[in-house]
């Protein structure tokens, strides 16, 4: 069977897991039923447990689904501490359902798979040795990749039923009131972990900082928490975020950022009260800087900035150029620290941020988003998941969710080294071309043919030539040559869900 982006889907797995193929980016107005977690009733007086061993013994059984958040990113100590205990306890057949997997977790996940501790994984993404391991067939069951909004949807639907959530926090009181802002290893917004706290049957907090009761502001509440475990260190603050955010000097990135800025400011969305989301990375940060100047020059203020937040964005808030920052995750210490002091930087959970099955998510109100791509094809489909060698090395993150914005801009260089970014067909479709509006490269831009209105608005910008996307593809191919097609086996190692839970593509085992 093929879905609407022309990807062949494996019938046996589709039937076994009761999946439908991706049809459309439209969510419509269905009536849905959300689930609720089990509650082990207590007055809250005996939640503090002295060791991870004790809490694992009390909560984790064979075949369960366990979860973690990835807000500590590469400074995470919690995941490895907990998984060590779970593996050593000989527990088998777990489903691992974290908000995402970061590099520091890779070795432990691989060990857990080899020992039968973990037999299923759902995540936003994976990179490095774990991506390599899975792409070479290391895990029997296919990994299910979900965007941040889709994970929230899947949890609310009961597609992901979390038995035990292990959530690291830089502070908590003895009943489990906690936030991400105070303590040693602070990361700011707890956005992704709030889903687990609300929907898991058992919620275990791990902290290196037990504070007097009651702890405020409480992002995670005592009404949600079963156990509080004191550990020596939850994370390495140096590795949680990138340090000082650096302004790129790469002329190619600057050229792309400048062009993105021109596309935004010449679009009909650049007016008082507009909203935007930018990612991380050199070009995105540079866009924020160019945009700032344009906002000052044109006396335009934004109503909100959304998503993963960096310091350049909170600087705009401080300057009064942005009214509110809606914050699901902070990428650097500057942004994390600022949340502390400014009530206009609102912590939002993943459902509020991006869940499609909602009474309105923030992404539904978004005007402009700038996203990256490993590959984009002549149908505007975007791949952020598999590398040029076909191996898993990325994460959906909020890509599918944020591209529902009124103006979705993909910023990417035409080629990276010898690899073309603009290709005839992406290796893996993650975000459907239907939700992408403009591609910005260092050579010029391409506009999705269904956006005739944008074509008119953007046609006379000095120094910004408009190409047909197939022309850009040919320009790339002329420079790098035609690659030998990648070789895959028939075995499916990962399923890519669209944000509505349908299957947009699969990833096959690489042939070596």
């Amino acid at each position, binding site marked *: 069977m093929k879905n609407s982006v022309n990807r062949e889907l494996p019938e046996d797995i589709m039937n076994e897991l009761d999946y439908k193929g991706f049809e459309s980016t439209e969510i419509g107005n269905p009536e849905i039923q959300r689930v609720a977690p089990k509650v082990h009733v207590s007055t809250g007086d005996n939640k503090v447990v002295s060791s991870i061993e004790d809490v694992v013994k009390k909560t984790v059984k064979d075949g369960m689904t366990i979860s973690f958040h990835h807000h500590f990113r590469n400074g995470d100590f919690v995941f490895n501490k907990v998984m060590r205990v779970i593996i050593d306890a000989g527990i088998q057949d777990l489903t691992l359902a974290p908000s995402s997997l970061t590099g520091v977790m890779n070795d432990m996940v691989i060990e857990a798979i080899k020992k039968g501790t973990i037999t299923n994984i759902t995540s936003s993404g994976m990179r490095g040795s774990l991506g390599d391991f899975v792409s070479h067939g290391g895990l029997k069951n296919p990994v299910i990749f979900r965007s941040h909004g889709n994970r929230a949807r899947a949890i609310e639907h009961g597609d992901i039923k979390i038995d035990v959530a292990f959530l690291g926090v830089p502070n908590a009181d003895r009943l489990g009131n906690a936030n991400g802002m105070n303590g040693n290893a602070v990361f700011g917004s707890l956005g992704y972990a709030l889903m687990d706290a609300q929907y898991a049957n058992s919620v275990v907090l791990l902290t290196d900082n037990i504070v007097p009761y009651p702890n405020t502001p409480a992002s995670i509440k005592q009404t949600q928490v079963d156990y509080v475990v004191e550990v020596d260190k939850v994370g390495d603050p140096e590795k949680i975020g990138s340090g000082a955010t650096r302004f790129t000097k790469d002329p190619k990135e600057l050229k792309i950022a400048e062009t993105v800025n021109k596309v935004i400011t010449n679009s009909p969305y650049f007016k008082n009260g507009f909203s935007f989301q930018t990612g991380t990375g050199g070009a995105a940060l540079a866009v924020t800087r160019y945009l700032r100047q344009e906002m000052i020059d044109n006396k335009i203020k934004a109503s909100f900035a959304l998503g993963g937040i960096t310091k350049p964005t909170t600087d705009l808030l401080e300057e009064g150029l942005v009214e509110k920052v809606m914050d699901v995750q902070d990428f650097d210490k500057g942004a994390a620290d600022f949340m502390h002091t400014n009530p206009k930087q609102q912590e939002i959970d993943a459902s509020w941020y991006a869940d499609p099955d909602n009474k309105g998510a923030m992404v539904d109100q978004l005007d402009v988003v700038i996203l990256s791509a490993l590959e984009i094809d002549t149908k505007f489909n975007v791949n952020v998941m598999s590398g*040029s*060698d*076909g191996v898993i090395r990325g994460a959906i993150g909020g890509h599918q969710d944020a591209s529902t914005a009124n103006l979705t801009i993909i910023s990417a260089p035409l080629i*990276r*080294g*010898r*690899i073309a970014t603009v290709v005839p067909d992406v290796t893996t479709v993650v975000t459907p071309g239907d939700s992408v509006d403009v591609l910005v490269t260092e050579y010029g831009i391409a506009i999705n043919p269904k956006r005739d209105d944008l074509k008119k608005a953007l046609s006379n910008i000095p120094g910004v030539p408009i190409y047909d996307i197939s022309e850009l593809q040919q320009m790339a191919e002329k*420079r*790098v*040559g035609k*690659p*030998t097609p*990648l*070789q895959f086996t028939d075995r499916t190692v990962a399923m890519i869900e669209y944000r509505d839970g349908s299957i947009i593509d699969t990833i096959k085992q690489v042939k070596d």
Partner: protein
Amino acid sequence: MEIKETAIAGTLESSDIQIMLAKGANGIEIDLESDVKKQFGQQIESVITTTLNQLGIESASVKAVDKGALDCVIKARTIAAAQRAGQTTDEPAWEVL
């Protein structure tokens, strides 16, 4: 051209290729290291071989460490390595360029 000594050209910077040429006995033998070997390995080897043949080198042992170089770069580094190996750097082989 005859290879008189082992010679090297190019760097390990991204978008470059480092080519080391030594005397060989069985035609052009290439040991290629590249992140894009799966997609462009054959193409890279064919550019190196063709360039060496154009310089009149039929036999050489080549060690190539590629960092995503384009064909024009591969050709330039191969010529430079070959002329150094043949000790002919003061007589550039213009017709090959």
